[in-house]
């Protein structure tokens, strides 16, 4: 798109001595904008990983800005209301919607993940208010980074509860 600007800007200027300075000026500005976009994309990028993928990548993802989702293990939830410190453990769930559907939907996937002792797990610390929906077998969607010890520091925490998942049609009550 930016390229069109240059050619168009240039084309609309009839041949003459003034043309070159407009092209050069336009290109300089476009180059500055592209540079700004490229560097900002790189420095603010946020990666989507599953917990499984974080564990596989090990130290290489430490400190990186990551968005990750996992199934909350009910027994692990600890909340200090005075310090507003929430700690819990999440189990890996697939990110791929097809895979989730194949395993019988989000609720089933979360249940399996929590009860599977072999599923990759990750400890999380979040400083803030405990969300209403924070409970076992809920899905936690978190932005943050993992430290060298494998503890995930969540900056934001969103909960999704499959029982309240929109899009379900009503099932008629048995007669």
């Amino acid at each position, binding site marked *: 798109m930016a390229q069109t600007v240059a050619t168009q800007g240039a084309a609309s200027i009839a041949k003459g001595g003034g043309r070159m300075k407009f092209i050069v000026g*336009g290109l300089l*500005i476009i180059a500055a904008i592209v540079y700004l976009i490229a560097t*900002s994309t790189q420095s603010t990028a946020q990666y989507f*990983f599953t917990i499984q993928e974080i564990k596989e990548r090990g130290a290489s993802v430490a400190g990186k800005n990551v*968005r990750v989702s996992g199934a909350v293990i009910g027994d692990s939830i600890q909340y200090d*209301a005075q310090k507003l410190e929430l700690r819990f453990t999440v189990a890996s769930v697939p990110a791929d919607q097809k895979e989730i559907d194949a395993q019988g939907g989000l609720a089933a996937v979360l249940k399996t993940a929590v009860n599977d002792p072999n599923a990759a797990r990750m400890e999380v610390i979040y400083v803030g208010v405990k969300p209403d929906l924070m409970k076992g077998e809920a899905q936690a969607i978190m932005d943050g980074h993992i430290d060298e010890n494998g503890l995930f520091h969540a900056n934001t925490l969103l909960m999704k509860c499959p029982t309240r998942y929109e899009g379900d*049609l009503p099932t*008629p009550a048995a007669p």
Partner: protein
Amino acid sequence: MTLTLGLTSLFLAFACAIYAAVAAIVAAQRKLNAWIDSARNAAMLTWPLLTLAALSIITLIVQGHFEVEYVYRVSSLSMPWYLRVTALWGGQAGSLLFWSWLMSAFASAAMLRRWDRDRSLMPYVIAVTMITLAFFLSLTLFVENPFNRLWQSNFGGEPTPALFQPANTVPFAPRDGQGLNPLLRHPGMIIHPPMLYLGFVSFVVPYAFAIAALIIGRTDDEWIRTTRRWTLVGWLFLSLGLILGGRWAYDVLGWGGYWGWDPVENAALLPWLTGTAFLHSVIIQEKRGMLKKWNMVLIILTYALVIFGTFLTRSGVLSSVHAFAQSAIGPLFFAFIGVTFVASMTLLFNRWEALSSETELDSLLSREAAFLLNNLLFIGIAFATLWGTIYPLITETLHEIGIYLNIAPLMAIEKVTVGPPYYNRVNGPLLLALVLLMGVAPLVAWRKASARSLGRLMWIPAALTVPALIAFYFLGAKTPVALLGYGIAAFVGLTTLSEFVRGVMARMRLGENPFGALITLAARNRRRYGGYTIHLGVVVMAFGVIGSNFFQVETQATLAKGETLTVGGFTMRFDSVVNFPTEDQRDVIRATVSVFDSSGAQIATLHPRRDFFIDSGQPMTIPGVRSTLGEDFYVLLVDWQPIGASGATFKVYVNPLINLVWMGGLIFILGTLIAAWPDADEAKRYAAAPVRTAASVAGAD
């Protein structure tokens, strides 16, 4: 009955749109005047038909026909009547119909107003608007039909939605519906989508005229003059929609802000950005006969982004490529955007030579060059925003292609997204540059300006900016970037005001009083002073945006009754909390807090609350706000322990200058109204041309 009526009207409207488009094209090719009239009649018939279809849905919702899937999804028995009426645009299927209804209304209006004036353009205007309408109606009819009913299989299981009864099923009518998402039950949210949609469809009209001009090979700026007001109206509604959306987020979403660079917000911003660039660059074409191709590019881009925006605001496509693939609507939208974009650009390239400039650019220091820079910045911001919005889709698609074709470097691409920090880093400086340009450009002469004359116009505002900067510093703006922002905003505000002062003083020399001079000035040059008023609105908003972004303070704490917290010079005491149910199926938890200023005087009693919607199981956090020009004290009740426990948890924001955002928005809208208001002089110019009266046009039907 109602359902059959609505469905039939919808289908007939679709048939009319297709017929109108085909007949208009045939008529134009073969010069058949009777066919053109027929095409126009068919096109104008779509509006009453779609009105019937929309009224049918509203009737079904109001009467609680939950056997209709759409009614079941967007309404419930506990909703008051006005929310049921507006539930028409509460979900995807209804929104598409509502969009089509507006599109049809605007297309009809364009045909009524301009029929005789631009006779040669009209067949293709009909064709373009009706093809767009037919596309949306085909989605409504064949993919997301709001008239689908629910059917229960004889073999059990979930009911399926379908238009006609599938084999082995019985009709199924739930006793109550799911209800409109509680977050959408807010006045701002009720009028926000219609405003955005009005803005979207208004931009289709200038696009249709542009394409018509390209097809018949007219290279003058007739299409721009004809559609100037449509463009301004579209722009006005888009601006209103964006401002209302921000206000809604601030009042309802409970995160203390008004703009989060969310994909859906970006979707509405993108056509606004290209539309704003278009509004500016057409001025050069009108004055100097330049940038003809570029204006075509801008309106084509705006149209593509309007369709893209309509699509994004109602689908979850950006969460994942997979979500995108699941809905049949996504690929259809992309195909339509792709086809119309390629077709439009092909038309443009065919006329490339004919659209050459009539004059040349002279100097880098000229109004023309300033407009070019303005366009470059707007398009830069639009591109950066589009890039950030679709970046997760790009990376994920490349990754999938890599897996599919087994290309290792592509497979190694991780799915990546970017958030608000990206937009702040890229768009922040570009917007600031744009604001600065906004102050300087109106002072620069056409063709060739001299630094000396520019200096003469700017030295007073520049000199006044210095004491303003010192004042900002001592008022607490000690961050260099914020100070730079304030300085630029102040300078631009002063230069814009100086333009008003110069105009008023010139008139006062003719013996008018200052106030009268201001009124005549604005009335005689609506476009110019309307534009300056918009610029002043932007300056006021800039102060608000800088203040609330750089100097927001927040804290959160769990308080027992009587305990206090302190933030940004304020002290807040938690007094009490009550819990009660309401008649419209909400469980309300309402806290009472007292706010004290730094001297210890009580300045407000606020009631932050949490409404729990029983039927949908969704909580909603409503802030308690003490609002003054200086700052908002914004408190949220985020958690509450029922009995005997530690008390309630609050999150508190102090947002400096945030009200300037809304006030600037109002000035902005006022300026747009001034610029778009019907102009007697313009009407006279048009009256000089032979035009039939509106009555005879209507009588011709």
